[in-house]
């Protein structure tokens, strides 16, 4: 029987919320990839996006505001055999969790990170999120936003993420494909997902986005993939093209895969160089006790350097 990746819980997002399209894209991607439901884990933070794991019929942790990335990293690094997806809001990922967002770029642990980008904090009644443009005033703001807009794509690229993409929650076909590529990607990926907040963001509506988004892949010459065989020059050019596209915003907004570098080794492989058998028998799977129930570690042998003979 085909596993149903959707739970039967009542979804309590507002009618017209972009989150619905994201959950559908995730469940379709998991189904099409034919993944073992026990081999995938979803981790989230706080906010509307944080509820996602409860709606997915896989193991899920709905953690702390801003901390989904470190919790997810702990899951991944202790059991690198698991596929780990992370769902978080723009505030969750790029404001309170920005330090972890940047650090994970350097690690490249192998997480699929989805940023639910609607420019507002919905669950706390519509405050400005870090992706809102300077001077914009959505309906629940008392005054126009006096913060600059943070660029998630450019930040992810600078942080070192080996895959960076953007989706639109009302284009589930494209989003699903991006998610599939990201889950199969060995390193960590960031997918910035544009979505309306029908309750609090009356500016960046579904219509607003539909008039502006275009797909990078529609240009047949667009090739964001860096392979280990590519020269430093080629890979540099691809990074530069991604960065140029990242800066595009306004009348035209690119979606699709901006950059995918398959040459950067994931953190798990870097750890494997130091920790014996790390990938074969993961920390989660290791035996810690003997048949008699005592430690498997021989203290005299392991700590021989501490003995004064």
């Amino acid at each position, binding site marked *: 029987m085909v596993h149903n990746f959707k739970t039967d819980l009542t979804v309590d997002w507002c009618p017209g919320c972009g989150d619905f399209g994201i959950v559908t894209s995730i469940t379709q991607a998991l189904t099409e990839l034919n993944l073992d*439901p026990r081999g995938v884990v979803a*981790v989230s933070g706080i906010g509307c996006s944080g509820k996602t794991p409860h709606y997915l019929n896989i193991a899920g942790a709905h953690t702390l505001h801003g901390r989904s990335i470190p919790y997810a990293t*702990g899951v991944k690094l202790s*059991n690198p055999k698991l596929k780990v997806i992370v769902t978080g809001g723009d505030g969750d990922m790029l404001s309170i969790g920005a330090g972890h967002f940047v650090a994970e770029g350097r690690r490249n642990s192998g997480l699929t990170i989805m940023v639910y980008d609607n420019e507002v904090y919905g669950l706390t009644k519509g405050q400005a999120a870090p992706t809102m443009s300077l001077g914009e005033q959505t309906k629940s703001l008392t005054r126009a936003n006096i913060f600059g807009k943070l660029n998630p794509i450019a930040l992810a690229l600078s942080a070192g993420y080996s895959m960076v993409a953007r989706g639109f929650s009302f284009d589930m076909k494209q989003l699903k494909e991006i998610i599939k590529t990201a889950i199969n990607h060995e390193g960590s990926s960031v997918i910035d997902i544009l979505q309306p907040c029908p309750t609090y963001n009356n500016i960046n509506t579904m219509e607003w986005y539909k008039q502006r988004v275009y797909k990078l892949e529609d240009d047949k010459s667009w090739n964001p993939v860096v392979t280990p065989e590519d020269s430093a020059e080629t890979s540099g050019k691809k990074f530069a093209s991604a960065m140029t596209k990242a800066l595009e915003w306004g009348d035209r907004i690119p979606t699709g895969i901006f950059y995918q570098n398959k040459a950067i080794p994931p953190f798990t492989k870097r750890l494997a160089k*130091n920790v014996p058998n790390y990938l074969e*028998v993961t920390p989660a799977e290791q035996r810690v006790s003997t048949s008699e129930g005592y430690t498997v*570690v021989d203290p005299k042998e392991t700590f021989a350097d501490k*003995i*004064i003979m």
Partner: protein
Amino acid sequence: MKTVDISITIGGPQGGGIDTSSNMISRAFAYSGYNVFGVREYHSNIKGRHSYTHLRVKKERPRSLKYPLDFLVALDPDTIFEHIEDVGKGTRIIYDNSIEKSDLSQARMIMKDTSDRIRQELVHSGEQMTVAGTISLMKKKGGIAIPVPFSDIVQKAISGGVPSRYYNTLGAALTLAISGVDVKFLEESIRFVFSSKEKVVEENVSVVKAAYDYCQENKFRTDNLEEIKRTPRFLLTGNDGAAIGKIMGGLRFQTYYPITPASDESTIIEEHEDLKWIESENSKLSKSGIAVVQTEDEISAIAMASGAAITGTRSSTATSGPGFSLMAEAISFAGIDEIPIVITLYQRGGPSTGLPTRNGQSDLLFALNTGHGEFPRIVFSSGDVEECIYDSINALNYAQRYQLPVIHLIDKNLANTSDFIPEIDSKRVKVPQVARIVHSPEWKRYSLNTNTGISEFGVFGKDIFWMTGDEHDELGHVTEDSELRDRMMVKRFHKLEVADSEIPLSEKAILYGPQNADVTFVTWGSQKGPILDVMEILEKEGKKCNLLYLKMFQPFPSEFVSGILSKAQMVIDVESNMLGQAANVVKLNTGIDITRRILKYNGRHMTEDEILDAARTIMGTSQKKIEVVLKHGA
């Protein structure tokens, strides 16, 4: 047989090889068959400021340090200036005779307020503001000056090079020569310390020989120190002990963010990532190691370790006050989500950055209350290096058994204590394997159907279940149902009652000494050793003493503590903090107010002599409410 009890302080600039020097001294005494106990004191500084090691050498295992010193070994002028108070009758002061003219005002690395204090003392004593003046003051206190031409001795021993680079070896050599330790033992320790560097070994051995010759010529040597049969022992710090315990306890994932004095533990684990298995259990499949991850901050450290715990990995993190403060929210999450996680909390002097490299026991009340909301946790502490080993295994066991955050307290003094441990027993504490099974569809992660509050554990990778920081149902989904909320709260706290009933009393509190005594000391952490030594001295004077040594603060052994304290004649609380935090916990749980207290919060280690003096003061007064604050320490 002569009683051997030698106290040594060797000091010099941070980065000047003090550690190497004290290591040489400890090893040479060890090779002669003796036991050495030591504590390292240092500034929050990389190079230049005053650091020192305080050691005690005995035949039996020392448990404490004491003043006055038998040897003060100064590798620079600052050491002379800083340690005036440590000198008493018979203290040999070994120093470089070329620094005698050094003026206090030139000792720029001494903290201004410390320098002002030293100046006042010298003025008061009518001495010059120089090393010579300070030595003169030390002589008045009974000190014996041993000025040595450091540079000449080194230059005679080796050609070329910077002589001061060998001063640490020279300091060690002079101390050992005067103590009567055979030169062969120091040579052996030099070979160990500089292992692969043959040229360095040769040069240092020449310096050692020159130093021994110098002492011989000048008749500084005392009788030869009696050699005792040597046995193999572990030379371990508290940091080592905790790392070893975790490794033996099945730790497979450790996270940390750099902080003094906690990060040494993670470095030690990393150095031993490649585990050596007990032979009979060895097979290719089981060959394993520990993943140690340096995180971007302490929030990430606790979150990552918690994430690893969810996959069934025994995991932990180690930190100190500032980092622990950052972990508060995630500890609360581990509480409601019943995550088996160990946080080793190395206490240093707070608040805020406080005294970042100095001792403190001021985080006990915080550890008991970290994180918002009410949730069960286990909070316990270690008092010596050996306890650090087995307590760290137990910490991982408690976390797994009761599925909650375990906070293991170790004070900085203990973290930086070095001690000789005769043996590590791999069968003293059991290490249960985490069950990693696929449960039947009826299984619920937070099942309320238990007699213990402990639901059957499941892991990501095997079972499908949910976790949330919200109150949740048995499956782990969010709930705000008023009745379910009550049941979940009760279930979680039930685990603490079960923990209290299952964990043996000996892991919670220990009574040392007779049931009935004239004086009952109460303490926790690294004062255990010094107080046991103080008790021996007082007993020789006819005072009956006992010690109520507290280890576990949550769950707290109220009945036991109450039973002892309610019939005690005189109770004296001893702690390294200002508020008497453990005494407050005792009062909270038993209603008994301990009004006689010996406290120290200047960040320096407590010594046998000052606890003894304070105890005598308290015993000698009819005052029922008295607080003696200890002030000693450079």
